[in-house]
């Protein structure tokens, strides 16, 4: 366990009611993130990683469990307390085309959180802060009166970052912030996020399906599959010594731009992600796992420490 986490969840669950049953989007998640660190959440589409991010920020009401911010359970907060809390916890969204109001100028977009929280009494101070924020994220000041449609994806994502920073948050959920961008622009935004973390000490939860991005930016990584964490480790440990068959499959599925890997047979896993509606007990990856045995479906598995904080939920590592 971490000594003094900024964010901690215990047995966090988020179920959605659907016509065909309960959809287990986030199922019993325990994570903690220490101040100044980056936890990467990796998984394929539909594994519940975005829902987890939103449930932690209380953008979605949790079904059960707790979310602690500096030791206080924010799920018990009333509206006024939560509003104060929100300025410390922010989110950067995936799609810089859909997450900005097309009818507001850049100045107005960045101004909105300042206005809502009545941070500045007078316009001059607020304007100064907006320009300051534009400098921080590398947007030219002359763009202040432009509208989102006039800008490219990379610049739009910079607006999203500036808006996130407006209220001086401590904790930022980055929900696939670079997946809609071209590689060279993606690299520019990743560098920006890392520079900001160095200079302002942010704590990130970085949600992505791209393993090379997550390795680059994270200190710790949690691999999610159908609402559950199947493996958690320090970033380099997870890549050097993956334990869970799903993590191994994910790692070997990435095409690597290196001739040494050309024509090397890669481990193919069969099938696709199964339904998260009323999942059967036991390991949820069992249907696709090459090492499946009767033990896998016998009982629910929990994360087990395999040394120095590296945890994995798989019968192969049970005593």
């Amino acid at each position, binding site marked *: 366990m971490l000594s003094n986490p900024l964010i901690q969840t215990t047995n966090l669950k988020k179920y959605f009611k659907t016509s065909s049953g309960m959809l287990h989007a986030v199922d019993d998640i325990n994570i903690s993130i220490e101040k100044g660190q980056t936890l990467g959440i990796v998984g*394929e*589409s539909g594994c519940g990683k975005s829902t987890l991010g939103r449930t932690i920020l209380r953008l979605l009401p949790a079904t059960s469990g707790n979310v602690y911010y500096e030791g206080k359970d924010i799920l018990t907060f009333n509206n006024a307390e939560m509003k104060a809390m929100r300025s410390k916890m922010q989110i950067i969204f995936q799609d810089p085309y859909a997450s900005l109001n097309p009818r507001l100028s850049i100045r107005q977009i960045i101004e909105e959180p300042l206005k809502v929280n009545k941070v500045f009494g007078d316009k001059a101070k607020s304007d100064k802060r907006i320009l300051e924020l534009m400098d921080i994220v590398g947007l030219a000041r002359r763009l202040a009166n432009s509208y989102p449609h006039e800008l*490219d*994806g*990379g610049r739009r994502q910079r607006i999203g970052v500036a808006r996130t920073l407006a209220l001086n948050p401590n904790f930022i959920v980055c929900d696939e912030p670079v997946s809609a961008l*071209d*590689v*060279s*622009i*993606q*690299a*520019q935004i*990743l*560098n920006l996020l*890392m520079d900001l973390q160095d200079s302002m000490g942010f704590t990130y939860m970085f949600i992505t*399906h791209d*393993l*090379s*991005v997550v*390795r*680059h*930016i994270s200190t710790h990584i949690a691999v999610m599959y159908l609402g559950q964490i199947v493996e958690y480790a320090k970033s*380099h440990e997870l*890549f050097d010594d993956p334990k869970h068959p799903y993590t191994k*499959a*994910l*790692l070997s*599925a*990435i*095409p*690597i*731009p*290196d*001739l040494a*890997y*050309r024509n090397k047979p*890669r481990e*193919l*896993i*069969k099938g*696709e*992600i199964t339904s998260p509606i009323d999942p059967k007990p036991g390991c949820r990856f069992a249907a696709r796992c090459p090492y499946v045995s009767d033990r896998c479906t016998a009982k629910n598995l929990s994360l087990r420490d395999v040394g120095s904080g590296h945890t994995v939920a798989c019968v192969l590592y049970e005593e």
Partner: protein
Amino acid sequence: MKKIEDKEILLNIEDLYVQYDTNEGTAYAVNGLNFSIRKGETFGLVGETGAGKTTTALSILKLLPQKVGKITKGKIEFEGRDIVKLTEDNMRDIRGSHISMIFQDPMSSLNPVLTVGDQIAEAIQTHHPDLSNDEVEARVDSVLQLVGIPASRKNEYPHQFSGGMKQRVVIAIALVCEPKLLLADEPTTALDVTVQNQVLDMMSNLKRTFDTSMILITHDLGIVCQMCDNVAIMYAGEIIEMGSVYDIFDFDKPHHPYTKGLFGSLPSLQVDSNRLKPVSGLMPDPMDLPPGCRFNPRCECCFDLCTKEAPSVFTNETHSIKCHLYGKTKAGEIQC
């Protein structure tokens, strides 16, 4: 088996120019493209959004938006015939039977109100009107099995399939008439990595079975390295570097500064690095391309000549680079 280099040329593009005339002005999307593809070859076309990759593919099928998009110069020779000069009727025979295309988004390239079996049958009936219904059905069944879908699912609708399965259906439609050339436009971008891996594996097997040539359009250098024989890197409608996969992915060989920037943008799975080294700035506006080398405003190695004169192509065996650094001096003389 014959090596790719010894096989005959299937498609040859020479000095191709494509532009879009819009209300805002003329966008110069493809500017002087030259490349050729042999039988059985997989040719990777790499570049960022707006580089002209998809425009190139649409030109080969003559599917550019009517009135707006037009080929202004050059030729596209397919099996010796110049596609640019062909009539619409001739093109209808070629599309889907000799050249077919896999689009990026499997969700929007299937018709939601027709069963997948009917959609595959449509492609067969269009090009083989003489086949009986039973023969058509038999071909639908066999092509579905080929792409890993049980033939019993042919009466289902696209929404009943997952993303990876839909892309398999799209591939089945593209392959059912056994085309000689397959244009795959970001075929796996919308898929998860484990499913992408399955689809790529299937595509390379099918390609080998039918000896199909393929143009693989992608921005993922990992896929290019694993799948392609030859690679062209596009920037602002031009090929700025081209060669065999062993030329492009050999980091000891000279490379175009943009190619280096692309590789510098990729976070590595093997090496820890503190910061990435991407190309600064943005792709130029195709309505307002910079004079000289199109890349000069973003290039760290830019010198006088680059802003005045377009570079010529410097070729060393299979590897060619369009850059003044290599063109006007001896290879490797200017180090940047």
